[in-house]
């Protein structure tokens, strides 16, 4: 993952620097959801007990992120986590375009065992 480009229209922005930070960090969060976060069960027990086994994105996995703040003048909306749910579908589409195989489960895998 090299670059993610985002655009958000929240009507207007009281704190553009903070608003952009919400988008940047939402993208990182969304990448974790798309590619890393996974809780697995073995003999009825969760296998992940700490950050050595539960993977979160780290600094070297944070791509370049473009943030476009669009001021349309519409009624203001909130910014909290707004970017998060957009990332997994975008990454899944990019992977499908790259590999020709579409994955239906998260986290997405490099070599999908059950690609549809």
């Amino acid at each position, binding site marked *: *993952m*090299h*670059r993610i480009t985002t655009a958000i229209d929240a009507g*207007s*922005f*009281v704190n*553009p*620097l*903070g*608003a*952009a*930070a919400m988008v*940047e*960090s*939402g*993208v*990182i*969060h969304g*990448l*974790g959801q798309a*590619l*890393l976060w996974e809780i697995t069960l073995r003999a009825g027990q969760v296998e992940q007990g*700490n*950050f*050595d086994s539960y*993977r*979160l*994105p*780290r*600094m*070297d*996995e*944070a*791509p*370049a*992120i*473009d*943030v*476009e*703040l*669009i*001021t349309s003048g519409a009624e203001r909306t909130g910014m909290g986590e707004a970017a998060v749910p957009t990332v997994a579908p975008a990454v899944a589409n990019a*992977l499908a375009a790259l590999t020709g195989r579409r994955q239906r489960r998260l*986290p*997405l*895998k*490099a070599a999908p065992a059950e690609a549809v």
Partner: protein
Amino acid sequence: MKRLTVNGKGVDIDADASTPLLWVLRDHLGLTGTKYSCGIGACGACTVHIAGKPVQSCVTELKAIDGPVTTIEGVSTDRVGKAVQEAWVKLDVVQCGYCQSGQIMAATALLSSPAALSDAEIDAAMRAALCRCGTYPRIRAAIKEAARALRSAQSGPLFNAPIDVGAAAASADSRRSGLPELPVCSPMQQV
């Protein structure tokens, strides 16, 4: 009893030799700026300096401490640490804040070494420090801003010059956020 130097002050610690430095700092000395998170050296939230080098205090035993300790409470007395903190404020890095003591200690240790500062070096030095909020892009930009401020301070008058990002981003009418170009990094490792 073990004699330590913490943030420039000598202190006598009456604790078992295997006590992790994290709990010496938090429980014995009341320095709660250093945070407990994973407890196994996997997340970096508890990072402090021993003799200027970053260590994860949750897995560093009292008996292993062989140099002066610096924590987030003391880092601003160091010119690099102060520059890092100022860059963090300028770029509004912090969100929930829990990991940020460790992030600032890791960044200060990185900028205290004379090595060049490529994106790969920033990534390698900061990889140990997890941030669940995902402030990595802002941390990377703030490290570069701190490095720029430190270079300017060495050459003189530009130290307090405003950075571009605040001014550009403060323009609410702008369609562009005005944020600085963020570096392209290595791909997510599992894909």
